[in-house]
C-alpha cells in the first residue's frame, strides 16, 4: 500500500525529508500535477498515530515551498499502488485545479477562543443568579468571537467557522494584518484565551477536490 501526502502543482524536486516509516518520498505526475507518496512498511497504530500524523504534516510543509500550490491529503487513507493513484489523480484533476486556484498564494491560519476559568470568589451564591451571569457571559463571549471573526474575514479570502474554532484562508502577503488583528483583539479582551497558529498549508479549504 502507498500513503499519499499531497497533490502539488509544478513541483520542483522532492524535498529531502523521509516519509512515514523512514521510506523515501516518490511522485506520480499527470500534466503538471504530482501526487506525492511513500510506500508503507508498517501500519499506523494508536501509539504511532501522533508521530505519524506529525511526519505527514512535515512532508506537506516541506512541499509547500517547492511547488506553485499544494492541496494536502487527509491522513489515514491508503491507495493500493501507483497506477491506482495515477488513475485517482486523472479523475480528480479538474476538481484539483479548481481547488488550486482557490487557495493559490494563500496560507491557512487557525484561531480558537477559550474562556478563562472563572475565579471561584466571584461566583454568585444563588443558582438563579449564577445561571443569569453564566448566560450573560456566554452571550458576551459569543459577540466578541463573532467580532473577531468579522475582522479576520475582512482580511481573508475564505473562512471555515465552527463555533469558537475557525480557519481562515489568508493571502500570504496579509499575514501581518492577521497578526495585528489578533493582537489587537487579544489586548482588548483580557477575559478570553486566544490560540492562533499558522501559517499552515490550506488543509481546511481543499475538501471538495475529491
Amino acid at each position, binding site marked *: 500500500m502507498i500513503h499519499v501526502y499531497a497533490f502539488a502543482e509544478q513541483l520542483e524536486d522532492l524535498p529531502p525529508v523521509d516519509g512515514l516509516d523512514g521510506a523515501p518520498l516518490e511522485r506520480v505526475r499527470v500534466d503538471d500535477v504530482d501526487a506525492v507518496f511513500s510506500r508503507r512498511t508498517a501500519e499506523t497504530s494508536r501509539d504511532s498515530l501522533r508521530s505519524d500524523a*506529525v511526519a505527514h504534516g512535515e512532508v506537506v510543509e516541506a512541499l509547500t515551498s517547492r511547488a506553485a500550490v499544494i492541496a*494536502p491529503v*487527509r491522513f489515514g487513507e491508503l491507495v493500493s499502488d501507483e497506477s491506482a493513484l495515477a488513475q485517482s489523480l486523472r479523475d480528480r484533476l479538474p476538481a484539483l485545479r479548481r481547488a488550486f486556484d482557490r487557495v493559490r498564494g494563500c496560507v491557512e491560519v487557525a484561531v480558537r477562543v477559550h474562556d478563562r476559568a472563572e475565579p471561584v470568589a466571584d461566583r454568585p451564591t444563588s443558582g438563579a443568579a449564577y445561571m443569569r451571569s453564566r448566560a450573560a457571559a456566554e452571550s458576551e463571549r459569543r459577540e466578541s468571537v463573532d467580532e473577531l471573526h468579522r475582522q479576520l474575514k475582512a482580511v481573508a479570502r475564505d473562512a471555515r467557522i465552527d463555533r469558537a474554532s475557525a480557519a481562515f484562508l489568508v493571502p500570504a502577503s496579509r499575514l501581518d494584518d492577521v497578526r495585528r488583528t489578533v493582537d489587537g483583539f487579544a489586548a482588548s479582551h483580557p477575559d478570553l484565551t486566544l490560540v492562533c497558529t499558522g501559517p499552515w498549508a490550506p488543509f481546511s479549504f481543499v475538501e471538495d477536490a475529491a
Partner: protein
Amino acid sequence: VSIVESPSLREQLTLLDLVDRVLNKGVVLSGDLTLAVADVDLVYVGLRVLLASIPTLERE
C-alpha cells in the same frame, strides 16, 4: 487574554493544530482506499483535554 509564554505549551498547542488538520482536514480520497486508523476519535478526545486545561496551565 494572556499571550502564551511557555515555549512547551506553545509547542503543544501548535502540535495540536497540526495534528487536527492532518487527521481531520485535507483532500479525502475515496474508492479503492481503506482507513489505516480505526481509533482516531479516541485520540482526538485525548487531545481535547489539553485544550480544556489551558487557563490552568497558564496560571502556573
